[in-house]
């Protein structure tokens, strides 16, 4: 670290950016403990009433949370399977159209999700009555795939393929080669991608709002619906819990894989 080389101006900018990023979070967390029904700052007193309200309110936040977790977990699991195999095939073999295939796997990242949601809605309504759970899940499987593919490709770029020959030479069949050599070595990238996918799916609102039905609503949509009617600190309370949730996920990631994988 060459701390002495950093002038006062960059320091001031860094602090301002940090404040800009953190201040809203601090306001929300403090507001969530406010006893008043309007969000005021600084809060007058302390209360856990809004946290109680999350579980008690007719907005059904809890069922939304469970639905979101379900979708995020299943979509991520499916994409680990799809994304890792797709990444392996384009990394291991050189063939015509390889780059086009990589672009295709990652294209959901570049297509505006509102466009994609609209197209998906058309397709689903043409197909007839498909439960909202499946509509949202399928949509998420598509839009979340790039995160796993990109992270897996990044670790595979430096993978030494001779290791697979070495394992085969020692008597490992292709399945054993994958589980005993390839997967353990690329695991950090896969986990990082999976976590990004999970958080993205959990947080996703554009696609879910178009594809949800009264029977199946995810948490972000519950929050948006609630916001249309009231603006009390229940939202601050639920936001605080979500911040805590994301933070825990990132700390776990840092613990097991290292955050540098996350930035790549």
């Amino acid at each position, binding site marked *: 670290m060459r701390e002495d080389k950093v002038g006062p101006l960059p320091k001031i900018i860094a602090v301002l950016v940090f404040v800009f990023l953190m201040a809203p979070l601090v306001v929300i967390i403090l507001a969530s403990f406010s006893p008043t029904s309007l969000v005021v700052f600084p809060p007058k007193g302390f209360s856990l009433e809004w946290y109680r309200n999350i579980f008690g309110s007719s907005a059904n936040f809890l069922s939304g949370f469970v639905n979101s977790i379900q979708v995020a977990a299943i979509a991520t699991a499916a994409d680990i399977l799809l994304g890792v195999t797709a990444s392996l095939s384009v990394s291991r073999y050189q063939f015509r159209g390889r780059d086009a295939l990589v672009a295709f796997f990652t294209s959901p990242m570049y297509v505006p999700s509102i466009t994609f949601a609209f197209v998906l809605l058309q397709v689903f309504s043409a197909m007839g009555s498909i439960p909202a759970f499946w509509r949202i899940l399928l949509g998420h499987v598509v839009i979340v795939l790039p995160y796993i593919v990109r992270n897996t490709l990044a670790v595979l770029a430096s993978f030494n393929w001779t*290791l697979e020959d070495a394992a*085969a*030479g*020692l008597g490992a069949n292709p399945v054993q080669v994958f589980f005993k050599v390839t997967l353990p070595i690329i695991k950090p990238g896969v986990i990082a991608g999976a976590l990004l996918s999970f958080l993205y799916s959990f947080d996703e609102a554009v696609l879910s709002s178009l594809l949800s039905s009264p029977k199946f609503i995810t948490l972000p949509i519950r929050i948006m619906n609630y916001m249309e009617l009231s603006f009390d600190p229940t939202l601050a309370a639920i936001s605080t819990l979500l911040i805590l949730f994301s933070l825990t996920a990132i700390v776990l990631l840092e613990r097991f894989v290292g955050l540098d994988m996350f930035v790549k």
Partner: protein
Amino acid sequence: MAVLELKNLTKTYGGFTAVDNIDLTVRDGEIVALLGESGCGKTTTLRMIAGFTAPNGGTVAVDGREMNQVPPYRRNVGIFFQNYALFPHLSTYDNVAFGLKLKKLPREEIRRRVEDMLELVKLTGMEKRFPRELSGGQQQRVALARALVTEPSVLLLDEPLSNLDAKLRAEMQVEIKRIQRGLGITTIIVTHDQEEAVSLADRVVVMQKGKILQAGEPKAVFDHPVNPFVADFMGFSNFIPGTVAETGPDQVKIQADGGALYADAANCPGLRAGMPVQAAIRPENIRLVTEGTPESHRARLENVTYKGNVTRLSLTGLFGQPVYVHAHDYDGSLEGEVSVLFPRDKLVVYPADKS
């Protein structure tokens, strides 16, 4: 304990023939070196023996059993990779134990065999280290231990000494031979280094453009290369063009530009008077003599390069081209005109058109 047989083995990539109809039999317990420049097909041959590359024609057989349809993981071939290919996520112990664990051997037997093998390659005490915590020489010995511990019927070594410094090379040369002899494993070494080949192998096979040019005992290949290419590869760096002046029962006289050379008739069969030829000799076999004799030649000392164990002298004014001499006892006193002798038993002569 196995006999390895390659028959008409061929591999083409598109229009390029990497390995061209090779026949080779490696006897039980023998070490054979495949020697050649990069791209000569030696590595492709190795990969076909291991099963990583499928031949377009011909067969690989171990103990008479054809292996073409057998996948690599059922071939029982031990492979040492040039870049070692140690599993970075596994410790030394687990790297070596990898193949034994796949065989589902009892834990106790695995432990015993891994430890015996680590002792053999002198790595006892390194069990818990990861590859990145080992030196290059240690990594190489782990790779060797891993290839040997499963008691393969055939051992394949890809450039086993190329990444080592001079001192370690000499040590490992002795080690590999000791271990291979002790276990009696049929072994193939792939290398581009003639010194590595002749020092390790019982038999050297020189390859070029997918074909075998010469196969024989190291000394035979080293001293009597069958053609100018092999000669060049084996370190005959002086090629002197000339014409056969006369052939006798014992010796052949070659008239070169600016002098005559004599070679043992045994080293140049099939020559007739008037034939254009190339006479080849190693730089270390040309002798500097203090007093000229009828057989010696006069040349001008142009350049002296000290190379450690030898001194490289560059001579001009002989045969219309530079001639290089490696002298072991050069004391630096010579300059100007020198006399050199071309020992007739060290000259090999090839018809000129066959290069």
